[in-house]
């Protein structure tokens, strides 16, 4: 297999960008060989791409379960470890249990959703990456790999579709 080069095509708007993706696919770039970088979230269907997989919900649900277990431990486990009478209330009370379990479940859910977002996206990461600052000005960039020798073909094709620039993607300090 010949060497692959990473290129970054920058588009002004969504329309040409989605055309560019179409074109790249036609040119034989597999879906997992390209990525879209944008300043706002753009639905995958708009760009004609398959939706990215996310593990955040699964991680969050795991967190919820763990949180619930923690809550149950706090309300029913700690009195087991050190039982104390207060005000004639039961040692293992149900109503209070609902409250604590609920809070802990929610904390687990959200905490793990947050952590999941980090884990699944590889954050935080301060290594150099392929990126240009114009993206945060609303430009859309397509990052793709193409065979070394077909670089020119790809650049021309995309330029024709309205790409502002198509250049060798160069990893730089963000």
């Amino acid at each position, binding site marked *: 297999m010949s060497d692959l080069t990473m290129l970054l095509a920058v588009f002004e708007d969504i329309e040409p960008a989605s055309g560019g993706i179409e074109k790249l696919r036609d040119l034989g770039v597999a879906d997992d060989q390209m990525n879209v970088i944008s300043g706002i979230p753009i639905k995958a269907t708009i760009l004609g791409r398959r939706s990215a997989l996310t593990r955040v919900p699964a991680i969050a649900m795991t967190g919820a379960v763990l949180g619930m277990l923690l809550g149950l431990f706090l309300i029913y486990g700690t009195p087991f470890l050190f039982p*104390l*009478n*207060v*005000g*004639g*209330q039961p040692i293992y009370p149900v109503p209070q249990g609902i409250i604590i379990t609920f809070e802990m479940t929610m904390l687990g859910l959200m905490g793990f959703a947050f952590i999941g977002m980090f884990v699944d996206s590889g954050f935080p990461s301060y290594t150099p990456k392929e990126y240009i600052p114009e993206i945060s000005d609303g430009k859309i960039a397509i990052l793709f790999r193409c065979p070394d020798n077909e670089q020119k073909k790809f650049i021309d094709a995309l330029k024709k579709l309205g790409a502002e620039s198509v250049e060798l993607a160069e990893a730089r300090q963000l």
Partner: protein
Amino acid sequence: MATDLQLPVFTNNSENELAGRWGMVIDQDICTGCQACVAACAMENNIPFVGEADAGYGRTMHWIRIERFWQGTFPEVKMTPYQPVLCQQCHKAPCEPVCPVFASVHSVSEDINLQVYNRCVGTRYCANNCPYQVRVFNWRDYTDARQRPELVTLQNQLNPDVTVRRRGVMEKCTFCIQRIRHVEDTAQSEGRDVRDGEVVPACAQACPADAIVFGRVDDPTSKVSKAAITSRGSHMLEELGTLPRVTYLAGGSAQ
């Protein structure tokens, strides 16, 4: 109305730990409001004085206070019978479950409310939730001789059996638990049961009118149990279901 002192038993107590339920009967008809109990309590339990300004602002540290109201206007004016109010040692104490750090817990062996000073973080929830308003809070460092030079000599009087509390801590009447424990220990070392009337809290000990009777309410033959069974007896704010351990005998001409 007969006063029912048969209190429900905790389900989760180990039976052999239940050493005794202490209770008190206060006869309002003979209480003369002389405040000897207040002073005796203060002396026994290392209660600090707070000074004029704080005292007048509801920050007295008394663990027992004597309440009185007025009825009617002159000349048909009457003072309601003096009512010493102290911690009622509720069986179902509202102060206990609200403490986030278990500083206010129920003693299994004496069945009274304990206040664990060194566990208290000073949220004051227990005092809010006490229907009898008998919990007192250390608003300042009243016992710190570094801040109050007048205490340098006065603190010689402190009772070593009772913790000296510093600022930020809630406290309340303990039924003189140090005396209860002392008598229990003595009885145990002598291999006998605690005799009725052997435990006397400081207030009952001082009371010149003998209006305060103390003893075990789970022993029907004890002086306190007998004193409580009269038509004059009632519990304060009985309707709240706190099952207080102090029985008041009504004052006035009620038989």
